[in-house]
């Protein structure tokens, strides 16, 4: 066992330890808490860099712990895991930074940051999970650790949202548990990537394995907010902006989508899924969700709600990419996992900034905000254009690969889904941009914070700007090896088309 094998555990523990320490800290120790938070985030980033190096050298660090007879907890860093872990750890740093600024002078920070770290710990666990059992454990842990964040504000609306969130995610969790348990009952502990064994199982019990597939996808689909299961996401937007960022970009919906990637690629195998005809229904469902989410977004007048429905739509891009049989579609889906995260986190940061600085919550209140908060507005614009899919923002790259993937898989109709969704995206983002930049200010701001007519405070502004720049950089330098696209291509080459 070389020292690198401990890295996955170390990555997990950094945020876990941070969580524990923060829980213990008294409420008033703000500086120490922030230091621990940011320190842990930075350490984690460094560890991730080491992991990336290891994976590039084709070593896959792995650590195992037997919890039940024949059942192991496996933490393993393969390239797909790194993709997600890298995204989460980068975004965690900025979200933490943002959250520190956002929650300045508000109560319950110890609790908030404790659960926040716990949430990231579980996300790390999800990304580094080496088998479905491990995945399941951290998946549920994520549900648990996000609940306190969703209800953080403690008013009636957030408690109601928390309840909706739980009803959806716990039901999804139960369905997933059922699927996983059934799979284990049939085939024992199947590590990710051991697709030959699943193939054998499918040969023996084709119907059962189909049912299990449906269960797994349905269970994961709740967090990924696929169409009939998306209801929690818009409701949960009552949470504070950093939490929304976490839900929409860093952790929760991504966990669902990532899980589906794992199931299709590393449990069933893409070819098998294709042969069994699993992929087509997913493509249809994802397409419908894409259009439906965009359509609903168009009808929202609340900024965060509009963004939430936009997430519903955008996350299904990932699924769409996965369900297209062929390397290009895969690349598109995987890379969108990252791109969507970067762009959506930017948008939520900005929405939070508008709310915090000027008390803006509704879209019609945004009139003329571009002059008052130019930098935040610029970041928002970048995010929005990326969502529409305009180069050089990252969203275009994903869309391009998805389109190519659709053609490669001979599913031309997907192109029209992409186009239709882009149209709708444009329809709900461009008017917002117009309001921001071109409309004159209408009367007073709803709730202006006195700050010498400045943009949002630096702690809120900088994360938004950085993620906006990252989403441009991810698109602009898409073809360099260290870009998300490069990594997605690496995964695709290395893992799926062996």
């Amino acid at each position: 066992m070389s020292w690198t094998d401990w890295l996955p555990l170390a990555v997990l523990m950094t945020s876990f330890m941070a969580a524990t320490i923060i829980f213990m800290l008294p409420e008033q120790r703000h500086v120490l808490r922030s230091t621990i938070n940011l320190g842990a985030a930075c350490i984690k980033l460094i560890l991730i860099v080491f992991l990336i190096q290891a994976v590039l050298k084709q070593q896959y660090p792995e650590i195992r712990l037997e919890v039940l007879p024949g059942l192991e907890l496996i933490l393993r860093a393969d390239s797909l895991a790194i993709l997600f872990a890298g995204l989460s750890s980068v975004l965690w740093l900025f979200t933490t930074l943002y959250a520190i600024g956002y929650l300045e002078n508000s109560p319950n920070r110890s609790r908030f940051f404790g659960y926040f770290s716990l949430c990231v710990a579980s996300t790390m666990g999800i990304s580094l999970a080496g088998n479905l059992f491990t995945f399941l454990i951290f998946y549920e842990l994520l549900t648990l650790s996000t609940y306190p964040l969703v209800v953080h504000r403690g008013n009636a609306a957030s408690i109601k949202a928390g309840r909706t969130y739980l009803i959806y995610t716990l039901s999804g969790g139960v369905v997933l548990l059922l699927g996983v348990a059934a799979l284990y009952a049939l085939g024992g502990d199947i590590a990710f990537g051991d697709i030959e064994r699943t193939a054998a199982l499918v040969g023996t019990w084709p119907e059962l394995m189909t049912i299990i597939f449906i269960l797994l996808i349905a269970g994961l689909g709740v967090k990924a907010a696929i169409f009939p299961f998306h209801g929690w996401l818009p409701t949960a937007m009552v949470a504070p902006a950093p939490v929304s960022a976490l839900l929409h970009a860093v952790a929760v919906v991504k966990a669902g989508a990532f899980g589906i990637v794992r199931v299709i690629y590393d449990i069933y195998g893409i070819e098998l899924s294709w042969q069994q005809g699993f992929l087509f229904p997913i493509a249809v469902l994802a397409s419908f969700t894409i259009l439906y989410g965009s359509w609903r977004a168009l009808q929202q007048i609340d900024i965060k709600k509009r963004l939430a429905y936009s997430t519903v739509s955008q996350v299904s891009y990932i699924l769409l990419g996965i369900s297209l049989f062929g390397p290009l579609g895969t690349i598109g889906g995987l890379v969108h996992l990252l791109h969507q995260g970067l762009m959506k986190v930017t948008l939520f940061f900005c929405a939070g900034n508008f709310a915090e600085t000027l008390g803006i919550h509704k879209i019609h209140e945004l009139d003329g905000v571009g002059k008052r908060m130019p930098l935040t507005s610029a970041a928002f614009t970048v995010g929005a254009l990326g969502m529409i899919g305009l180069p050089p923002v990252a969203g275009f790259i994903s869309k391009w690969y998805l389109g190519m993937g659709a053609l490669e898989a001979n599913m031309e109709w997907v192109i029209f889904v992409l186009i239709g969704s882009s149209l709708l995206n444009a329809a709900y983002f461009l008017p917002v941009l117009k309001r921001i930049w071109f409309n004159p200010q209408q009367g007073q701001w709803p709730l202006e914070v006195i700050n010498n007519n400045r943009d949002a405070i630096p702690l809120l502004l900088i994360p938004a700007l950085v993620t906006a720049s990252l989403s441009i950089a991810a698109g602009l330098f898409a073809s360099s090896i260290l870009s998300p696209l490069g990594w997605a291509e690496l995964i695709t080459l290395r893992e799926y088309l062996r």
Partner: protein
Amino acid sequence: MISQGLLFLTPLFPMMLAILACFKTFKKNAGIFAAIAVLPAFLLSLLNLGQLEITYLSMPAVLLGSVWHTHPTGMTFLLFTSVLWFFSALYGIGYTKSDDKAQRFWILWLLTLSGNLGLLVSADIISFYGFFALMTFAGYGLVIHTGKELALRAGRIYLIMAVIGEMLILTALFLGSAATGHTSILAQDIAAAIPESNQINLLLFCLFFGFGVKAGIPLMHLWLPLAHPVAPTPASAVLSGAMIKAGLFAWISLLPLGYMHSSGWGILLIIFGFVASFGGGLVGMLQLAPKAVLAYSSISQMGLMTVTIGCLFLKPELTPLVIPVLAFFALHHALSKGALFLSVGINSQYRSIPIVLFVLGMLLPALSLVGIAGSGIQAKLLLKEGLYALYLPGIVMSITLSALATTGLMYRFLWLLRQERRESLQASPADHWMQLSWAGLLICGFLAPLLFSGNLETKSVLQQPIEYLGLLWVPVIASVFAFWFISQPLRASVPQGDLIVLIEPWFSVKEASADKKEDKNEQKVQPSLLNWVDKDQQPTPSAALEIFSRSQVAALLGVILLLANLMLWIN
């Protein structure tokens, strides 16, 4: 090396300046920035104009492997684009003197410019698409700059059409890249591979109509007569002169010209082209605003270029000959139309300009556009010469006849300017920036055949007097009609954007429900395509006939001629 450097700076220099212009320190200098922003592009185009050797700048890490190049056609486009933007910027410095939103205007100007220049040097479709989108969306800001109700409406329609266009383009690019077997994103490879695509018709449809939004082909033109007039005058000039050509340039780069023969697509394009050419003339003559007349004239002129492209589907082998001509025609139109737009702003400053110069300045671009003066002569002659080789005499004839529409439009335009001068009680003070830039553009337009033709062989009028006479007769006939009806007041007009007024209430899904309340208070006016000057007086059929018999007779004649030609040609 120098070329590569310039290539790199062509789109990025304006972009950097745009960023600089965001700072308060440079608030005053933003207009100057806009003027100097075109320098790299201008130098690049001058350096490479007419050179067959293509310089490439490939950036494998950028986007999906960006490649920028100095394509000969692109260089011609780059040349007139940069010239037009330069003079318009100078003009704009004067124009926006007392505008408190000038900084925003210039930032958007620079961004639009960056997009426009960038797409002309892009060899790969991704950067092309990016720059195209940048131009489109930043251009939106120019359209609605005044923030008035009309501008906002125009902007909304502009945006809707633009987004639809973008989506069609994206579809086309998907299909195109797939046609190369997912191997290439270079425009030239895609153009070559399109004939092999199994979705060829869909692909061509998307390409044609997608870029047709910019180029103002019929049905896709709805935004154009709305947006061009409401924008600030310098912006109108670049919209109508330069940006409209982006559509044409995209067609030239991406359509499989020379790679495939398709009479179906050829005929379709030709029909669309002539409908634009004559229909634009007809509707344009029923306009009440001078800039709207110019916008319709742009549609009409773009129609001619569409026809030319259509012809290349019929005779692919002529492509290498015709494309440079087409580029030159575009150059001619850009400079002339730009000058015309600028003269709208100069119109009110007539007191401060010697009358001879003023009249000359007003007439010259108009005559050039009609084809009997300046660059227009060469452009028209070259075009005809190129198309003669098609052995499709009907088309050449029709092109000749299209001068009818252009002449009518120019009369209408000049007439409207004259009305304006009379009605305005006091003239605006002279503005040297505006006047100088106007003059500069005029001169450039006039000298274009000498300066900017590259290796295209342009003969002077003296060398081909007979052909010149061939250009003359249609305008002369048109003038006769025009003199007959010019003194009559117009009894009816077509609203700007024609068909849009029918469609607009139908698909104006406003953003979210917040706006719904406002809508209810508005009086719903039943839109109609023809607005009568005297609303109370119901037009009797005979009155309607009278109107047509008097004022629109020229255009009607044109349409009939067109139909006749088509019959002739189809036989």
